[in-house]
């Protein structure tokens, strides 16, 4: 607990260093991830990270000591080599991109594992140090690591800020970008090189296996919150930083299981990112799953209410004034039963669309209020006009049109109803009856 408080208050200078490094890395990966994901290149980061491992092993074998610059340089060279291999396989054979990616990713990773095993057996080979590159060990970050990450993050942000317009153009519409003379291949390459540098800078903290997640998950999660690329980049950067810091903090603060060498930071960061993604997916106001469910429920409620209004109109439409009241049973018979009908009618009463008679001979019966009658007339009109339209102009049999109209009456916009009226105008009798056997003697007013 004490340790946790120290961590939260950033009392430990080492924690400050590690958090700063992880946060900057998260911003950088989140921002780049937006463009990578939009370019449908999400898995390239994964390939780069895995392909980088043999570079680390090789530079360890050559330079012996754990020389950070040499290790990262080796990783960078092999990461790019992996990307080039993917491109080459696609260009010269019939192997498709996903397969080429899988081949390169796993082969390079295998080679990397073998090389690091050899490196570990050499004198001075530090087992833990190399394993850290596979699963990530943010706690071992030192100030020079953070400086490297800071440099990468600043470079990335500057490039993205300056060439935001070009990146957006190339990601959205490559051929148009090429048609106005932008070197799309070069812009793609710069993006790829930035991804490569970012992934390599992140390797010591997050590890080979999970670095790609830091590119993909924040960007994908941020997409739930906005439709604007600028905000998307900002939110993804924020999510990336948040995930990285939370992951680092958790792996430092959670009690370590007995006998283990500590939590894998990469895994903690990815889990934090996944949690942020889950929250975004569920709770985002427009595109979130819960918002979609709520919209569907609201529409269902509106639909059932409108069905009752239309039924109330139809059961009373050939009656004389004074006879417009109806009972629940009539509605049930008319719309062939409906669960929760009483509740729907109560809702209509509360909305001022239906009135309930309390006293007199009609006690217990209902009638449409003026507002309710207007609304019901509108619905019946939309429903029947659509049915007539289908029969006249789409040659659909009269007994087939009801179900479709049942759904469309709730969503037909006014302009479309007008258009149908005009379309049917000359051939339609002034009072269009229902075209099928449910109701007869319909009178609609206001025919154009």
């Amino acid at each position, binding site marked *: 607990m004490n340790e946790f408080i120290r961590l939260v208050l950033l009392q430990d200078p080492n924690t400050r260093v590690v958090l700063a490094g992880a946060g900057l890395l998260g911003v950088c990966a989140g921002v780049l991830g937006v463009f990578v994901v*939009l370019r449908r290149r999400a898995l390239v980061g994964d390939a780069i990270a895995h392909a980088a491992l043999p570079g680390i092993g090789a530079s360890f074998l050559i330079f012996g000591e754990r020389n950070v610059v040499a290790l990262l340089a080796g990783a960078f060279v092999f990461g790019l080599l992996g990307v080039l291999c993917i491109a080459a396989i696609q260009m*010269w*054979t019939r192997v498709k991109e996903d397969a080429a990616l899988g081949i390169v990713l796993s082969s390079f990773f295998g080679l990397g594992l073998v090389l690091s095993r050899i490196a570990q057996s050499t004198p001075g080979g530090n087992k833990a140090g190399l394993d850290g590159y596979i699963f990530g060990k943010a706690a071992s970050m030192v100030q020079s690591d953070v400086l490297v990450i800071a440099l990468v993050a600043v470079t990335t942000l500057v490039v993205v800020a*300056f*060439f935001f*317009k*070009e990146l*957006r*153009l190339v*990601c*959205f*519409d490559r*051929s*148009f970008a*090429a*048609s*106005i*003379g*932008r070197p799309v291949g070069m812009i793609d390459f710069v993006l790829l090189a930035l991804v490569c540098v970012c992934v390599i800078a992140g390797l010591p903290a997050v590890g080979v296996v999970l670095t790609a997640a830091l590119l993909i998950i924040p960007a994908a999660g941020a*997409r739930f919150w*906005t*439709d*604007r*690329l600028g905000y*998307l980049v900002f939110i993804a950067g924020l999510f990336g930083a948040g995930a990285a810091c939370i992951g680092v903090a958790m792996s430092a603060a959670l009690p370590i299981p007995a006998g283990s060498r500590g939590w894998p930071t990469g895994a903690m960061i990815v889990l934090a990112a996944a949690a942020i993604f889950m929250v975004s997916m569920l709770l985002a106001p427009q595109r979130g799953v819960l918002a979609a469910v709520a919209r569907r429920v609201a529409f269902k409620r509106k639909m059932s209410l409108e069905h009752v209004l239309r039924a109330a109109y139809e059961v009373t439409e050939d009656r004389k004034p004074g006879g417009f009241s109806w009972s629940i049973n009539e509605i049930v018979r008319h719309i062939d039963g409906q669960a929760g009908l009483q509740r729907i009618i109560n809702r209509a009463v509360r909305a001022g669309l239906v009135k309930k008679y309390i006293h007199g001979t009609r006690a217990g019966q209902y009638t449409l209020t003026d507002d309710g009658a207007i609304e019901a007339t509108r619905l019946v009109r939309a429903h029947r006009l659509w049915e007539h339209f289908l029969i006249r102009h789409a040659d659909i049999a009269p007994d087939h049109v009801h179900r479709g109209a049942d759904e469309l009456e709730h969503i037909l916009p006014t302009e479309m109803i007008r258009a149908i009226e005009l379309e049917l105008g000359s051939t339609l009798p002034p009072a269009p009856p229902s075209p099928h056997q449910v109701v007869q003697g319909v009178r609609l007013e206001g025919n154009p």
Partner: protein
Amino acid sequence: MSISVEVHDMTVAYHRRPVLWNVDVTLPSGVLIGVIGPNGAGKSTFLKAVLGLVPIASGWAKVLGQPLSKVRTRIGYIPQRESVDWEFPVSVKDVVLMGRYGRLGWVRRPGPEDNKAAMLALSTVGMETYSQRQIGQLSGGQQQRVFLARAIAQDADVYFMDEPFAGVDAATEAQIVEVLRGMRARGKTVLAVHHDLQTVAEYFDYVVLLNMRLVAAGPTSDVFTKENLHKTYGGRLTLLVDAAEAVRTATAKQIL
């Protein structure tokens, strides 16, 4: 009459398989030109090759009498609507502003003048009220009109449009034709890939009939004849197709 596009002995290949053979054609400016032909005839490829978007295997193409790199800002292009991701996080106005990027150059952001041009272009196609919408919320016809607005914002002299009428409703089609005629009235040239043979004579002054090679090109009244259409559509050019296939397999064998 000045020349908009000049193509000399142009052959284009995809993955070494030729799709257009030895096209020679010279097109006038200030007219609406329909590029007509069956599926797989190389119509889109023809536009892309002239624009330098796909490599030319042999021959050359000039626009406005000059090599392409000299006249980029005088060229407008509308790719096929399906070629982009309409879920992409940009607004209608963002897309139209892309039409200004050519003159803006690198790094510089669109200014008030570009905004004005974009809004004017949107109102020309009747979409100004949609400027802040995300492009995925538009219907197919509206999306096509946004692309047209982007082309208008480019204020180019020669336009290349890949199937501008694909998947649009009748009202939108009429509106697009109106815009194209407005462009012609201002002396601009439009090359449009077109599918509906019924409307060719009504829409276009000039036609280019393609089927893996140039069948005919000229004023619609002279060239859009039964005989030429039969040459373009009737009788698959089995020999050309077979030859292309042979070229591809031969090169493939050498590599593999």
